[in-house]
């Protein structure tokens, strides 16, 4: 399985660390809504198909990535930096063109 890091390009999955389900929404830390906390900690969609995930390129540039992966085929549909628009994001493309 290859994940195309927006900074480093296509890399083997062993360079990446899975950081969990990307669909979770953390309640306000002051919240006492136990149902919301229970859902945040335990509830998972476990879909057979496209799944939002968080990965870290821990064996490379160490950036955290938002990945959409198909859980049936392991196809990677999209990869993006979690941190918003970063000036370096477009730099890989600039190099590819040269």
């Amino acid at each position, binding site marked *: 399985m290859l994940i195309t890091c*927006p*900074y*480093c*390009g296509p*890399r*083997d999955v*062993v*360079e990446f660390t899975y950081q969990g389900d990307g669909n979770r929404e953390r309640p306000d830390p002051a919240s006492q809504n136990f149902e919301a906390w229970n859902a945040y900690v335990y509830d998972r969609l476990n879909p057979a198909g496209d799944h939002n995930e968080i990965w870290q390129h821990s*064996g*490379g*540039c*160490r*950036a955290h990535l938002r990945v959409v992966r198909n859980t049936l085929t392991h196809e990677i549909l999209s990869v993006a*930096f979690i*941190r918003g628009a*970063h*000036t*370096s*994001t477009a*730099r*890989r493309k*600039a*190099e590819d063109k*040269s």
Partner: protein
Amino acid sequence: MVERQSPLEPEFHIGSHGNFEHGVEIILTETGPGSIVQLAAWPGEEKKLIAAIRTVTGLALPDGAGGGLSDGMKSVFGFAPGKFTVADEAEGLAGAFAKAVTPAIGTVTDLSHGRTAIRIAGPKAEWVLAKFFAIDFALPAFPVGAGRSTAHHDVFAQIQRTGSDQFDIYVFRSFARSFWKALCHASEEVGYEVQ
């Protein structure tokens, strides 16, 4: 001045080794730069950091992820978004950057004693490195001056191409001797010389 000891020393054997009857196809050296510094820009401050690198080293970073260059004495390359490794033959680079990179721009980390720089050169350099790292070492994919961050069996490595058949590899000092031994073993089949 205090002489810095090499972590490779017990396994550093100058001369030709391995299958070199038909010629030496790999040259292994330790470059031993006086300074190795890691720079990181806060989000949005990358251009100011790149300008500071130019001011301190005289090297103008090219655009592109992992872009870099080397003038033989000083080397710089990007290894992550907004982060750069700079090496210099001379000592004192961290001090110079501490003045140029203000706390508003980013951070300066002196890794001169934390990393070991190993140079692999020769016609079979790409071949030997391809046995270690699952990245494309071909010249069009990995141009001269560019840097890559990757890992070999969880030993993090930053690689800069400093010539068409020459690479500088920065590894953790504590893993350097083990990595060096592995590099020597991998180079045996093509014949290598330690200089």
